[in-house]
């Protein structure tokens, strides 16, 4: 099983306004296999976007290793990274901010082709047109500007741009959260079809659990800069081992009244602690309904409850 992005023990400290630096990501380890989707979930401020940005080297990690297809990229200078970026692309959350408003969408989609291939002129344009059609848009709209498209269409344009260089791994940071439900379904289906066709790996960063469950094969859950649980999708969703994962799952609204009656709601007390002053011991202990004294003093161990299912907790569920 070829491994793609393999960030190990990544630590990223951001300098914030207060004197104390914020440790956005602390000791995160993940593995993404070929043609696989790893869903990365967590709430605002948990560090999931920063993990994505570190993998993309839009941020340089302070410590730890990131291996892309075996090659260590965490501290590479930009000129060494550049050719590797062909295999690593991104789709951002905000379809309004991630397309250059001064370029036609055709020019945006062609940019990676220009950077990573020798295509020119009409060959470039043809390929851009093909990519456009592949994502369900019309070739004759290539010369339009981003503001002429809807949110869902702009997201498709972002996807067309991301697949142009035939990458191995695409980092998708909240790619569908800004879209209406029916448009989300179209884009999720498109992403799944493209993954099949181009044998892509995805790091799918999102807070919407139902969408993550639908598209991911494996899932990692983050809280306050750390990964609290990782495992195969079905295992994590059906039998969460970490209290935070269980709370997250129980908080998600359920449509069917009969099914909802069987879910025990765990409503977490209080708010997220400040990332610049994370709690001692287990970072989750201040909100955990099952916390015991050891949780306040000692960081939890990583326990493998089933093969491939790992939880950071003194008392896994």
């Amino acid at each position: 099983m070829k491994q793609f992005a393999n960030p190990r023990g990544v630590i990223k400290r951001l300098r914030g306004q207060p004197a104390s630096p914020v440790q956005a990501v602390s000791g995160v380890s993940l593995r993404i296999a070929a043609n696989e989707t790893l869903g990365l979930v967590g709430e605002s401020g948990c560090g999931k976007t920063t993990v994505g940005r570190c993998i993309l080297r839009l941020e340089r990690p302070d410590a730890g290793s990131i291996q892309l297809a075996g090659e260590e990229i965490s501290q590479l200078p930009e000129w060494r990274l550049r050719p590797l970026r062909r295999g690593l692309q991104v789709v951002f959350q905000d379809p309004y901010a991630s397309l250059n408003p001064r370029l036609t969408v055709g020019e945006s989609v062609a940019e990676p082709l220009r950077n990573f291939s020798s295509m020119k002129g009409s060959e470039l344009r043809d390929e851009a047109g093909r990519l456009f059609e592949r994502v369900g848009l019309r070739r004759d709209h290539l010369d339009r500007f981003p503001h002429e498209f809807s949110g869902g269409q702009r997201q498709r344009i972002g996807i067309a741009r991301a697949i142009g260089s035939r990458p191995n791994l695409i980092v998708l940071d909240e790619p569908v959260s800004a879209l209406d439900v029916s448009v989300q379904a179209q884009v999720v289906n498109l992403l799944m079809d493209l993954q099949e066709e181009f044998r892509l790996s995805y790091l799918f960063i999102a807070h919407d659990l139902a969408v993550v469950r639908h598209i991911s094969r494996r899932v990692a859950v983050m809280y306050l800069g750390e990964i609290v649980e990782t495992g195969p999708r079905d295992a994590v969703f059906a039998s969460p081992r970490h209290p935070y994962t269980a709370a997250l799952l129980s908080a998600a609204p359920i449509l069917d009244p009969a099914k909802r009656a069987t879910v025990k709601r765990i409503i977490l007390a209080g708010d997220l602690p400040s990332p610049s002053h994370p709690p001692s011991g287990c970072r989750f202990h201040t909100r955990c309904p099952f916390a015991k004294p050891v949780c306040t003093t000692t960081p939890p161990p990583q326990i493998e409850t089933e093969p491939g299912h790992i939880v950071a907790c003194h008392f896994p569920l």
Partner: protein
Amino acid sequence: MSAIPPLLEIDGLAVEFRSSDGAVRAVDDVSLTLHTGEILALVGESGSGKSVTSLAALRLIPDPPGRIVCGRILLDGVDLALLDEPKMRRVRGKDMAMIFQDPMSSLNPVLTIGQQIGEAIRLHEGGGGEAVHARIIEVLELVRIPQPEMRINHYPHQLSGGMRQRVMIAMALSCRPRVLIADEPTTALDVTIQAQILALLRDLRERLGTAILLITHDLGVVAENADRVIVLYGGRKVEEAPVYALILNPLHPYTRGLIRSMPHLDSDLTSGSRSRLVEILGSVPPNAGSLQGCGFAARCDLADQHCVSNRPPLIEVGPGRRSACWKHDQLLRPAA
């Protein structure tokens, strides 16, 4: 709902926006009733007219370019559509209040939360100093903000998203309005905070009997919080029903399409397979509200020529249920 008259009744509302390209009907013939202690959800996607409907109810549509073309907005029998602005200002915040989607852009960043909550109290009830301060603390406690005496002097940026939304709710409730319009109150919030805020709204309904018009695109939120639901599409009402009836047996193809296109946490996914979501093909046409026929026909798998040329009326299809679809009987599930 029986002989008790509704608290809020919107009757045949139509709202138009004028631009250089002509006038667009953002809301067309929308009616609803809301009773004390009831939670009515208004569901729809972008362009459905749900926000415009609620803004129109509070007479917050800027004119120009918007305009209430026709319809009545009856609050306790008084037609708000006919009130002048000074009279309307006495209604807003006092009898009917609104909480908006994004608390950061809806709260004044240069005023403390005490000043902002106090504003409504001073405006509607007069008084000053101690009395107002006590009222502010009272309402902060109502929305369960911890350490209210300290928070009262904080600015919005010092609060988390969930806290800011509670402050918005506190502002809206400060004068005990009988109707609360909540426009996507939890969309910008994390799911665990969303659960807290929705629990708070339900609690307020229980304790104060506040009637809530809950505007959302999230059917999961609807399922867990609403008593009744109205579905809007292209500015028009397409379905109305009690919540469970709607979810278990939708009687409009759009509602059914929405439910099917959502990934559900509890759906059966065969391990390792890649199952596709059921899409609603196409997208909302910009002129859906002005079409002669059914606004959804172009995307509907049940539509025929009759649907394209003739606008379906909203008709009663069951107890408390209405649907605007020529083919609704094809969606009826046989009784279990």
